């Protein structure tokens, strides 16, 4: 029943179906008086199943995707967009249900599938197996919700489980939808749908300072999306009508991203009337860019990330680092670049500068962190800087590197956050200074950590190296100086990772942590596949690149027609 023309719909809505089921269970529970324990377990099972099916769907989509295919024709030109499913949604607004994937989004779809599933596993309290099971704070199943003092918060996997699962599934839908939407309005809706559950997942199931983190995240992102909405409407009002799903022409304007891209290429927005004396395309570009830069997060707007990460429960950090951060660059490549080529040229240098700042600045800040999770969070900021730099350079190599960086970082940083979660579940703190010599107690864990660290600091043979190499090599001819500066990051990165390694795992064993259990099966299930992917991608990047390259080269070519 899953066919190429509806696989994306499945991938998007399977989670929602799951949450609906859980909701139904909650209602039914009232009438049948089912046990809370039963409801919890049931909702967990539903979540696992839904997210697994979502993974399957995304893998199928990847399998069916053909990088060489012409895809949907827009104004007679190939767009490479495939597996399209479209129908009219809100006729009066010219809004369509219009989803499909091209080389850019398919990689993100696959990533979303993988990471969502991992996050789902990470949300389960199961498979703690092994002789000495970990003591997760308050892992007792009877649960009066918020009965937690800050010192021993009830573990997030057992607090208000159904609610958590529903929100998690909604979040998944939001993310998947954002990546497949090809209608600006639809995109915006999914974007917000993804925003709200995140707010609660951090705010309700988070750490001690969760309120602050959640509010901060919420305000930042909402400020961004309001700007984005304005920009979307502004673009809408400068657009020309386009053919809609049913073959009729839309009224006066269109939300169809592909159409808009074609119009943008034709200079539709470059020549539009200025607003308040500023060139239309520039003002819109800035609006879009800030909206997305907050998600990346780009230098001045990045401070929500460490807080959000530190307070968020592990699976949410995983999703945050693995997928949400990717939506920034994705949005820029999906909106700013195709729609506003002229403004893109205009802004390229600025983007590059911000990229360099991200890389270096965040790397140094990470070097100074004591909190394990904060360090990893800042390293994310630093690594996303490479994506910015690559996008700015706009050479085929650099931009492929930028997108590939999104993918690899989407694999590595979740692994890192899982690793932090593992140690946090055991020690209930993340202060690296207080650890030491853990390698003796947890050899397997140390090995996995080492692998993830080296992958992240760009060791050749692991996933992290290739994108950095491509971005640097690609931007070298365009931004010589910037590249040189950015390249110094490889040293700093190595420094803070190895130092962390040393503080946490090497040296004499801190007796306080003697007798810690090594990774249990649940953690193995999550970490080993990710590790395998890291190695695989390190030696065979073409596996992803062959899918994204054509789309990106098409993008560049449209930016600068030959």
């Amino acid at each position, binding site marked *: 029943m899953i066919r190429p023309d509806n696989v994306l719909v499945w991938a998007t809505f399977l989670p929602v179906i799951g949450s609906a089921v859980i909701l139904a269970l909650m209602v039914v529970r009232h009438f049948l008086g089912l046990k809370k324990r039963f409801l919890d377990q049931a909702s967990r099972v539903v979540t696992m199943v839904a997210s697994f099916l979502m993974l399957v769907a995304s893998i199928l989509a990847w399998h069916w995707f053909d990088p060489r295919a012409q895809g949907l024709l827009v104004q007679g030109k190939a767009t490479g967009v495939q597996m399209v499913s479209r129908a009219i949604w809100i006729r*009066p607004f010219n809004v369509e249900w219009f989803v499909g994937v091209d080389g850019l989004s398919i990689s993100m779809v696959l990533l979303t599938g993988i990471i969502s599933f991992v996050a789902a596993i990470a949300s389960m309290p199961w498979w703690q197996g092994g002789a000495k099971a970990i003591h997760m704070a308050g892992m007792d199943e009877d649960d009066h919700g918020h009965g937690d003092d800050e010192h021993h918060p009830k573990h997030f996997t057992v607090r208000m489980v159904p609610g958590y699962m529903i929100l998690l599934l909604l979040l998944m839908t939001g993310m998947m939808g954002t990546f497949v939407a090809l209608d600006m309005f639809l995109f915006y809706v999914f974007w*917000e749908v993804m925003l709200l559950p995140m707010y609660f997942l951090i705010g309700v199931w988070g750490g001690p300072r969760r309120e602050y983190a959640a*509010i901060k995240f919420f*305000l930042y992102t909402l*400020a961004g999306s309001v700007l984005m909405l304005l920009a979307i409407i502004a673009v809408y009002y400068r657009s020309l009508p386009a053919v809609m799903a049913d073959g009729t022409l839309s009224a006066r304007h269109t939300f169809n991203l592909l159409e808009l891209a074609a119009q943008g290429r034709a200079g539709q927005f470059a020549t539009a009337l200025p607003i*308040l004396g500023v060139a239309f395309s520039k003002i819109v570009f800035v609006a879009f860019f800030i909206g997305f830069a907050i998600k990346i997060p780009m230098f001045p707007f990045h401070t929500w990330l460490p807080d959000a990460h530190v307070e968020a429960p592990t699976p949410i950090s995983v999703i945050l680092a693995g997928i949400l951060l990717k939506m920034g660059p994705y949005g820029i490549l999906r909106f700013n670049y195709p729609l506003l080529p002229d403004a893109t040229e205009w802004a390229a240098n600025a983007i590059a500068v911000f990229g360099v700042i991200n890389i270096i600045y965040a790397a140094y800040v990470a070097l100074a962190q004591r909190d394990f999770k904060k360090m990893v969070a800042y390293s994310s900021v630093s690594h996303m800087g490479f994506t910015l730099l690559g996008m700015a350079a706009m050479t085929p190599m650099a931009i492929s590197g930028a997108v590939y960086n999104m993918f690899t970082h989407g694999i590595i940083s979740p692994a890192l956050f899982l690793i932090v979660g593992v140690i946090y579940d055991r020690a209930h703190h993340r202060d690296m200074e207080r650890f030491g010599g853990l390698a003796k107690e947890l050899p397997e864990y140390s090995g996995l950590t080492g692998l993830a660290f080296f992958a992240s600091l760009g060791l050749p043979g692991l996933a992290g190296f290739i994108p950095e190499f491509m971005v640097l090599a690609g931007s070298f001819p365009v931004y010589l100086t910037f590249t040189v500066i950015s390249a110094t990051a490889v040293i700093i990165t190595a420094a803070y990772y190895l130092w962390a390694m040393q503080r946490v795992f090497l040296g004499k064993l801190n007796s306080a942590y003697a007798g810690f259990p090594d990774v249990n099966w649940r953690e193995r299930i999550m970490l080993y596949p990710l590790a395998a992917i890291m190695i695989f991608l390190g030696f065979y990047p073409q596996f992803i690149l062959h899918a994204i390259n054509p789309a990106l080269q098409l993008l560049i070519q449209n930016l600068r027609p030959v």
Partner: protein
Amino acid sequence: MDIQPFLVAENVRSTGWFRPELVLTFGALSLFLLDLAWRRSESRARLLSAATLTVFGLAAILLSLQPGTPQSLFNGMIANDAFANFFKWIFLAGGALTVLIAGPSRAYPPSRIGPFYALLVTIVLGLFLMASATDLLMIYMAIELVSMVSYALAGYSKGDRKAAEAALKYVIFGGVASGAMIFGMSYLYGMLGTTDITRFAAAIAQVPTTLPHRLGLILGVVLVSSGVGYKIAAVPWHMWAPDVYEGAPTPFTAFLSTGPKAAGFALAARLLWGALDTRGSMMGLSEAVGNIPWPAVVGVLSAVTMTLGNFTALPQTNLKRLLAYSSIAHAGYGLMGLAANSFVGTQAVMVYMLAYLIMNLGAFLAVIVVERFTGSPSIFEFRGLGHRAPLAAVSMAIFLFALTGLPPSIGFTGKYWLFVAVLDRVSGPTGGWYATLAIIAALNTAVALYYYARILRAMFFEAPLSEVEVTYPTSYKWLLAGFAAATVLFGIWVTPIMDWTRLSLGQFYRG
């Protein structure tokens, strides 16, 4: 001049189009009687509620029976058109829902609920007239009808000082406002020679452009709009709102914040977009007539209103008061649609009023749930509501998101269409102003989020003052669920609303 027979005939004909209003009139009267009749029965309250709902039901049936063909009734006193009908549906829904809300809320003891219902029906009648009035006299009478009953109901709870104070402030402010309005009307009447607003546009064109005339004209328009403005609680005629909202019994506040506001906007639309503009093509953009730059003025008022409302809402801790300020802010958003002075703009206002009815009634219901249990609408009572009353908390969250204007919710639909209406003007001659207005509105959305988020935080993140589960009647559960469902559903299934409003506005009586 003596009464000519055709006037009589006209009135007789008109009565045929006046059935819902008649039902409401006699319904109100009969409710008084029934209240007396059922004095003894202990199920008095339930019976009265049923009776009131029946009245509204009847009115609804009759309303659905009469087509929205635009025409003038009672010698141009009121108009019958789909536009009015749309709002009439809103009023009926609002009234009925208020009945459902007011019943179990402990605001009205059975002994006093009868008159409340009767007066409620009367207000609805007044709102009907407001929505359809096309003559200054009718407008004045409709507003007065609504106002006077509202004064009474605002203070309608025995020995409650706040209520009494609210009523006093309301009556004084309202009195002055209506005084100002009628004074303005007298000027308009004098200068335009008619009280039929559908003839204003033509008449204004005749008015000489000397300063006295212009001053008189503008004074007239402004004073009249003060009457309308205080109904929709727009700056600078907004100051009564917080006190009255806080003091009045909450169910009535809920109604007050939706019904009269909607009626005010209907009236404003008739006055401004209907009477004071060039008859631009039905779909196109029209411009203000004469030399009254009212779209610009309304634009400024809109910006000021939303900003003032939102910022003043920030420090509030009493949710009723907070929602009062937010309703001021929403009046500001609504005015954006009028400022656009276009078909789309007016349509956006209609959509927004519908959306606001649903989400705001929902929000107030959640407040009632808490106030009813804890006795105070303070935000502190909302702490930990996520655990104490999950359904109420979750649906409240949905309403708040809708009020903020986040998709997918009806609030977003409405706000989106307002933005569209304004940005539609951006490409026009005064586009810069409209762009500014849009940006101010966008920023306001963010600000609004800030205080809505405070409630969210209280409900879900903060530890409650007491662990006790908040109990409330099942009917409220269903209502909350219903409101929430509607809020989300119409955020996704938008087409019917858009079509309904478009068609209704398409049959707008322009004389």
